[in-house]
């Protein structure tokens, strides 16, 4: 018998854990039936290999162990680790040392999983979109405040008919009547320019991360639905019906709780195929676009490259949905 096995046997019985009857094929000698840990059935763990009835500890080098644990985990072969076994087979001197090596190993594994997740999910795209939305709302708020300020010194000014949309409003306020306001208007203009630049960057980032979604919905819309979904991975797992109403949270929950009509579209309304189509077709276009985006998101996440044949077919289907029959 393996000397290690005997040592192991003793240490287990000293602990006095309840015996679980080992499942052993005959013809093993009867004495083995009393073994408390089913050694011969033992699965490999992150710290030791088991074969031929003994266990062979792996060198306690975290980098080696981390790689081994990952391989074991994905193979589905791993057994639940037991520190007493680790001590018995000489991997660690005591529980303290076992935990210390485990700690180092787990850190390495977590770091490499984190690295991989950051590469696959590209959280940067989502952060860029959130920044873009924040800048949008900041520019709007600041512009409104600027108009308020201007009104205070120009009693004849009415925001009812005189406030044009977008940045033109800020040019209107630059008539020199309110000097302190000028610098602030410049700052808002600058921020607004940064916003345009960032929007372009989001588009090109989306084209790289979500090539198929971007081709169907445009880079900005693709990036926004990924953000609403909570990430590229989450978007790939989402059903088309959910993608269709991403960004229409309030309408959706009012529908669910109070039975109002369900929303036809969320963020994807911003795509010209949806908002450009006739009112009565919009729901259909949104539905088809969402269905194709759901497929595109999966290609993007799992394959990561553009699929021109799919894009052509999908675009045709979206066009078809907008046609009046």
């Amino acid at each position, binding site marked *: 018998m393996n000397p290690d096995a005997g040592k192991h046997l003793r240490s287990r019985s000293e602990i006095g854990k309840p015996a679980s009857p080992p499942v052993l094929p005959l013809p093993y000698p009867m004495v083995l039936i009393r073994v408390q840990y089913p050694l011969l059935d033992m699965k490999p763990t992150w710290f030791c290999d088991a074969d031929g009835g003994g266990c062979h500890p792996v060198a306690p080098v975290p980098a080696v162990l981390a790689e081994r644990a990952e391989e074991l985990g994905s193979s589905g072969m791993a057994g639940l680790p037991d520190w007493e076994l680790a001590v018995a087979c000489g991997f660690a001197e005591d529980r303290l040392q076992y935990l210390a090596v485990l700690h180092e190993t787990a850190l390495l594994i*977590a770091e490499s999983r984190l690295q991989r997740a950051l590469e696959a999910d590209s959280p940067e795209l989502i952060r860029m979109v959130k920044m873009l939305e924040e800048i949008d709302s900041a520019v709007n708020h600041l512009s409104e405040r600027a108009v308020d300020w201007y009104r205070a010194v120009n009693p004849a000014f009415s925001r009812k008919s005189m406030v044009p949309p977008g940045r033109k409003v800020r040019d209107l306020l630059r008539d020199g009547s309110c000097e302190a306001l000028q610098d602030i208007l410049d700052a808002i203009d600058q921020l607004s320019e940064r916003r345009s630049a960032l929007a372009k960057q989001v588009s090109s980032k989306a084209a790289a991360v979500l090539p198929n979604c971007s081709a169907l919905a445009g880079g900005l819309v693709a990036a926004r639905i990924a953000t609403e979904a909570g990430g590229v991975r989450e978007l790939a797992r989402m059903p088309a019906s959910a993608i269709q109403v991403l960004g229409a949270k309030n309408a959706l929950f009012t529908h669910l*709780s109070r039975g109002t009509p369900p929303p036809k579209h969320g963020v994807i309304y911003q795509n010209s195929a949806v908002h450009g189509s006739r009112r009565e077709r919009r729901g259909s276009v949104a539905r088809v676009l969402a269905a194709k985006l759901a497929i595109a998101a999966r290609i993007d996440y799992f394959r990561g490259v553009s699929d021109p044949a799919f894009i052509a077919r999908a675009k045709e289907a979206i066009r078809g949905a907008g046609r009046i029959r």
Partner: protein
Amino acid sequence: MIWIGDQLVSPGPGGVYGERMIQGCRLWSPARSKLAALYHLGGGVELTANHRVLYLGAANGTTVSHVADYVEVVYAVEPAPLPMQDLLVVARQRKNIIPIMGDARLPEAYLSLVEKVDLIYQDVAQPNQAEIAALNSKYFLENDGHLMLSIKSRSIDTVASPKKVFKDEVKKLEGDFGVEFEVLQRKELDPFHEDHLGVLARMFVDEEED
């Protein structure tokens, strides 16, 4: 658990997330931590230096750091990358936190690292919280081990009344998944956390052989 006046604290080096220190101990605020809220409401199990804990839904490691102050080792499971970055910083300072990047719905992914534990604490915002708890208990919980569960009703059903959701979820826990639990305590975490229920349960083990 250590109380200073009516404040729950944990013993350990401070400065993990800017927490207040009271007489050299770290204030464990019930407003921030659902587990602290459960203790403030008189629930929970007494954490001791012998405890081995599996913590599902570790997030940024705020509550994890307090649990680690009390127990021997915490296996902290968190799936999301950005919270994981914070958790790793905490785990590098506290040697008894074993960080695991994985999804609590798929325990196979961390089966190779986590040993049997005495206590599972779960705080995940998923629609099938009871099922996740049962699945992990099946793998990792010692016989007679405890499960502490923070159930967020809004993650299960946004529309239904929280009371009904809690009732259904506890019922599911008690016997839907091939592991049986004896529910020892159930406390709504009002006013600290809205629409949350803290549950303490013991895994129920059949007395077979012997």
